[in-house]
């Protein structure tokens, strides 16, 4: 993975020093909260319902075991012993004290981490495929370009006061695990007819109150033009994005209002002015960064492992976990281990300091020292030998991280909701917990199969409910918490926005309602038919009948 050189280190250290000064000015009263606000918001520090919340960047979701141990240390020293992994592959701490934040950041800097641009109307942490570098069929490791974009966007002098926050995701695979089409910019590595690698650009996707699947504006941008093309898009947006209405300020609204074709032309016009000049990405730099992402020293192993086979036969729980949570690795004899942070009844994405340390140890011993954070709020050990899977599973299970529920109904995404967030209409976490408990039986989950449930506590959609197969949105009805259900959403390569099923359900009714949706699915599905397939085929009517007939 990427390691800082002297320049990267200097920039992060100087940032810590600068922020320490800003906090000191706030604490001494030189700065009012109003004046301090924009400054702290450039550094991931939010004021929540009960306390400050600090969001730490995990660039494109990749961590070393040393970094993971530092996250555990921070959880213990500055928080209440846990952290929360987010849908942006970051980690949030819910209880740091303002005066201690500079020390926290200094600790982070010792392991090459920071909180730069994890909030504010700027270019946020770039996200990527959690299987980057280990998935079969990938064109190149997309993290090379994520790192290039991370550096380019860090303290960008022109694009730090955009109309609104700006999110970029990069993938290099046909199977889109990074949800690139619901980002402000989604970048897919592709090959052109001549066999060169370049980038396909989607712009103007997003969730929130106007969910949009981003359209393509350029089918092939050359590698050397990556940064100039990004500059051109951002420059058009910075000038023309709406600033009069918070809810119309994202780039998706601009793209929609001028039209995709016209927007692409505006970008192209801007690009012609700056193309082939100082923004060209030097091949030297691509090569330099690529060297950090070179594959680790894999052993030559047979594709199947005899001991693994025995263990699978002897232990049904382990067998279920391997089937559900271990994905195909591009190298024979290795597997990609998904660590569920969704124990039954738990808070999605939460991990204790002890759990983080267990994961760090496992990564160090069994996965070339690397961990990934997924946008579905789980963790990944990308490079585990098949012969090591059993010990890894045992260690994870002993720490409540061995649940074999990856991709099932209990592997939910949930935003913090009313328990933490001051914008919320309704609680999200307890709804997730109750659904999880209702479907606690693993064999029932496995029988249902893949089913993505996503919960947001308000229309800002941090829980991505629009792209849940089953989406749940907290709404306020005369001061009561209600939940609207949407069906048929997807964030992958077949990205689509879910459709609203009908009137919302109360806090007490919502779990029953979800169960009824699942019942309809089980009743009507053809053998092997996925939830989305069924919704496509039969529409919402059978669901409506079941859920609203009695009302």
């Amino acid at each position, binding site marked *: 993975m990427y390691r800082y*050189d002297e*320049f*990267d280190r*200097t*920039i992060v250290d*100087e*940032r810590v*020093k*600068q922020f320490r000064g*800003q906090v000191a000015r706030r604490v001494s009263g030189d700065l009012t909260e109003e004046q301090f606000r*924009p*400054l702290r918001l450039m550094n991931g520090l939010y004021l929540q319902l009960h306390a400050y919340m600090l969001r730490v960047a995990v660039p494109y979701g990749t961590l070393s075991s040393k970094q993971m141990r530092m996250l555990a240390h921070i959880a213990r020293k500055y928080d209440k012993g846990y952290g929360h992994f987010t849908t942006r592959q970051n980690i949030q701490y819910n209880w740091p004290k303002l005066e201690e934040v500079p020390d926290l950041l200094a600790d982070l800097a010792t392991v090459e981490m920071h909180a730069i641009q994890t909030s504010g*109307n700027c270019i946020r942490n770039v996200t990527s495929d959690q299987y980057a570098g280990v998935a079969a069929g990938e064109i190149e490791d997309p993290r090379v370009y994520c790192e290039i974009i991370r*550096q*380019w966007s*860090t*303290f*960008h*002098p*022109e*694009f*730090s*006061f*955009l109309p609104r926050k700006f999110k970029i995701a990069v993938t290099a695979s046909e199977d889109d695990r990074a949800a690139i089409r619901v980002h402000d910019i989604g970048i897919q590595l592709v090959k052109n007819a001549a066999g060169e690698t370049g980038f396909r650009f989607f712009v103007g996707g997003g969730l929130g109150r106007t969910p949009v699947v981003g359209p393509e504006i350029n089918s092939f941008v050359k590698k050397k033009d990556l940064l100039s093309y990004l500059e051109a898009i951002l*420059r058009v947006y*910075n*000038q023309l994005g709406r*600033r009069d209405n918070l809810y119309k300020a994202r780039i998706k609204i601009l793209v929609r209002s001028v039209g995709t074709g016209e927007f692409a032309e505006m970008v192209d016009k801007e690009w012609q*002015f*700056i193309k082939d000049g*100082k*923004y060209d990405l*030097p091949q*030297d*730099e691509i090569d*330099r960064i690529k060297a950090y992402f070179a594959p680790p020293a894999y052993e030559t192993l047979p594709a199947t492992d005899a001991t693994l086979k025995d263990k699978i036969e002897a232990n049904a729980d382990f067998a279920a976990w391997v089937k559900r949570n271990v994905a195909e690795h591009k190298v024979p004899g290795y597997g990609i281990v998904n660590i569920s942070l969704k124990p039954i009844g738990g808070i999605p994405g939460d991990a204790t300091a002890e759990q983080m340390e267990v994961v760090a140890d496992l990564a160090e011993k069994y996965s070339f020292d690397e961990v990934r954070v997924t946008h579905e709020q789980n963790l990944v050990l990308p490079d585990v030998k098949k012969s090591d899977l059993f010990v890894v599973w045992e260690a994870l299970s002993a720490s409540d991280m061995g649940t074999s529920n990856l991709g099932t109904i209990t592997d939910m995404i949930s935003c913090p909701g009313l328990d933490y967030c001051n914008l919320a209409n309704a609680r999200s976490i307890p709804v997730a917990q109750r659904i999880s408990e209702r479907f606690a039986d693993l064999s029932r989950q496995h029988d249902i199969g893949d089913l993505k449930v996503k919960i947001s506590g308000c229309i800002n959609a941090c829980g991505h409910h629009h792209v849940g197969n089953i989406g749940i949105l907290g709404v306020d009805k005369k001061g009561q918490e209600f939940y609207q259900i949407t069906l048929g959403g997807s964030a992958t390569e077949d990205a689509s926005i879910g459709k609203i099923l009908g009137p919302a359900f109360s806090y007490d009714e919502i779990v029953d309602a979800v169960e009824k949706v699942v019942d309809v699915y089980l009743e009507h599905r053809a053998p092997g038919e996925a939830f989305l397939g069924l919704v496509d085929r039969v529409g919402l009517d059978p669901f409506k009948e079941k859920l609203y007939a009695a009302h």
Partner: protein
Amino acid sequence: MPLIKGDQITEDPWVYADDEDELPSGDVVVHLERWEKDKDSLRSRNGKLGLILRSDQSPELVADDLAAFDLIALDFPAFKDGRAFSYARMLRERFAFEGEIRAVGDVHRDQLFFMHRCGFDAFEVENAAVLQDWLEAAREFTSVYQPALDAKQSVLRLRHHTKKAAE
């Protein structure tokens, strides 16, 4: 208002003109509307001419007239409104404007660094006493990742130049 230019507080020789009044003598700054209306007389008067643009007025609107101006002031109606960062770069890079580009309005100490990098070279500030503070803020970062318009070499160049030199 105190003006920071060239790392110090300097006397501001410019006067902002109202849209209707008789123009004062000397160097004046006018709004776009007045420029559109009185182009000819403004061009023929003695003294330098400056233009102030609101944040919804792109310099593209005066692309053909830029030679007439020695100063362009770009307004920040609120610190959050970052359009003028792009305008300043456009003036310098696309239109090769060499006069003064001045930041006016809600200009914050913590933005000075970025403004400077985008091509601003003068800053109207509320209080001359904060100069030292501002200058410090402008120097908080010694390395930068992106090529821009200040004298700083981007990390991209430094990395590959030092490497080349060492080879």
